[in-house]
């Protein structure tokens, strides 16, 4: 029944084969990530060199360009400025550039953090309560409601982009963080309710009933008995919700511009001299990947238990 029982039977050779297959797949899957990571440390000419350069002189120019706005100046003007005061000014000067101020990357990144984590928290919080109610209480038209919730996932969210765009304009939610949090929460809620309901269903009612008989209220029983046992499910759900909200591109492009723009629509349009500034784009992408990686690593034990839920139970 369980997957873990298999390698033990097939022996060392089977395990070696399975291990090699996983390693090979991981290698192939990591190549694009590695390329992005490497490109972040290339100079602009290296980044678009043909044939592509695997070995190159690493530079932080991409990161400097990502975080700053610069303007091109004549040699005469730069000479009047005196020697560069910081290492990043030095990199800019080497290209005849002068740093004029910070770029908007940090703002965009912060928007992503607020919107991504905010909507994840809300989707999981509301999803947990709804899942508990659907699992435990007699809700009128329960099956229909659950199907209705599921049906919102049957089309790509972007199919309703125009109506949402119009609604948001009317309601003054366009280009606001609250609007984006609301939107991502709504999209994620169906996933979160359904996933979490499965987890609540697996927790025997007897636990809560025992607590209630022992002198706890229903809410206390929920907090002390049900919630701790849902940890794995909540972690798994939170990761799925965060990945969606964090990566979402189409709505972010459509609904945000100046104020609440997230990183995904911002990063690919970082313009350098004569076109896209590929090293800066790659640097931004690398930094953008980090939170999801960290979040997933932090929750990986819970996630693993969440995925194997039901298999371990007798």
């Amino acid at each position: 029944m369980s997957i873990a029982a298999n390698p033990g039977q097939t022996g060392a050779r089977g395990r070696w084969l399975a291990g090699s297959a996983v390693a090979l797949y991981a290698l192939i899957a990591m190549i694009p990530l590695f390329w992005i990571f490497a490109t972040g440390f290339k100079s602009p000419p290296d980044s678009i060199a043909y044939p592509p350069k695997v070995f190159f002189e690493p530079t932080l120019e991409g990161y400097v360009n990502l975080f700053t706005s610069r303007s091109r100046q004549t040699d005469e003007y730069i000479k009047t400025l005196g020697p560069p005061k910081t290492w990043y000014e030095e990199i800019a000067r080497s290209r005849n550039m002068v740093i004029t101020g910070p770029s908007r990357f940090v703002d965009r990144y912060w928007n992503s953090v607020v919107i991504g984590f905010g909507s994840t928290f809300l989707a999981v919080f509301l999803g947990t309560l709804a899942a508990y109610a659907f699992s435990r209480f007699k809700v009128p038209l329960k099956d229909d409601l659950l199907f209705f919730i599921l049906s919102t996932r049957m089309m790509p969210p972007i199919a309703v982009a125009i109506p949402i765009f119009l609604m948001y304009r009317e309601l003054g939610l366009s280009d606001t963080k609250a609007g984006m949090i609301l939107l991502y929460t709504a999209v994620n809620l169906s996933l979160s309710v359904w996933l979490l309901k499965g987890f609540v269903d697996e927790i025997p009612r007897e636990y809560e009933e025992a607590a209630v008989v022992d002198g706890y209220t229903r809410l206390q029983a929920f907090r002390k008995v049900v919630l701790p046992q849902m940890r794995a499910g909540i972690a798994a759900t939170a990761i799925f919700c965060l990945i969606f909200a964090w990566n979402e591109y189409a709505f972010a492009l459509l609904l945000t511009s100046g104020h609440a723009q997230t990183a995904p629509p911002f990063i690919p349009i970082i313009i350098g001299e004569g076109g896209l500034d590929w090293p800066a784009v790659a640097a931004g992408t690398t930094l953008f990947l980090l939170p999801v990686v960290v979040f997933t690593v932090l929750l990986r034990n819970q996630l693993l238990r969440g995925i194997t839920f039901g298999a371990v139970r007798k």
Partner: protein
Amino acid sequence: MAEASLAAVTKRFGETIAVDDVDLTIANGEFIVLLGPTGAGKTTLLRLIAGLETPDSGTVAIGGGDVTSLAPAMRDVAFVFQQYSLYPHYTVFENLAFPLRAPGRRMGEQAIRKRVSEIAEMLRIGHKLKNKATQLSGGEMQRVSIGRALVREPNVFLMDEPLSSLDAKLREDLRVELKRIQRDLGATIVYVTHDQLEAMTLADRIGILDRGRLVQVDEPRTIYERPATVYAAQRLGSPQINLLPAGRLGLTPGSASAITAGVRPEDVEVGTPGGFDARVIAVERRGAEMIALLEVDGGQQVHALLDAHRPVGEGASLQVAVRPGAPVWFDREQHLVNT
């Protein structure tokens, strides 16, 4: 400890009547066992006393006070479930302390520690207090869940087949232990089971449930000897009581309404001269005793409980008779006829 009572309690789930007009009074310090097959309403009855279900009509009282509309937390009863009774994310100590830490109780940590270790010693799980609940064996788990009921000294203990998920040996051990604890504490216990052996050995009184109705409440011996209905007669005794139409094996009823005789297998005597001719169809040896399935009077089958060293083999012919005075008589409605 306190007494508990149900008066004219009925509970429906949709179309089905789970508990049908039940009256039952459990005396202070009494061990009462509710016996019946799956779906007889035993667990529902227990949940009604606990407050986990609300009756459609009738009243529930504990310690003399009406608790029908009271929340489970306010009734001060303890419930031992068949399984899933321990919180897997807590240690044994935390599981045992959980009821004591309930908001209404607010016991001091010192007192909690003292009480928990007392109970743990009593149930011989003192050395397991630091273990996670999931690291225990089945027997230890059930000990802890009984312990979790015991720590609180509640009005009434409600136990829903607490031993049924254990293997035979453990069940026997815990059964003896449970009876001892109940005597020592003078605890009021309502215990649900479908195992007649548990019912016979544990109960001060047994309540027989049939499709939500309480058929008979009496001491085990009384139910065994004078069952109120055929159904009650069949719940106790293994093999089941023999039901023979009047006239068979020379059985003559003492009253006109009596049409069926109930004869316990141990009251069927074989090898007695002047009995009826019978053939042995099957023999089941149980160690100290054996069960013979006999065919008499053209097709009527009768179980006999015999000594293990009786020379009775399959296919043998012998004489069979019913011990005089042994039969109980039932009428057309399958009720006991008083003779």
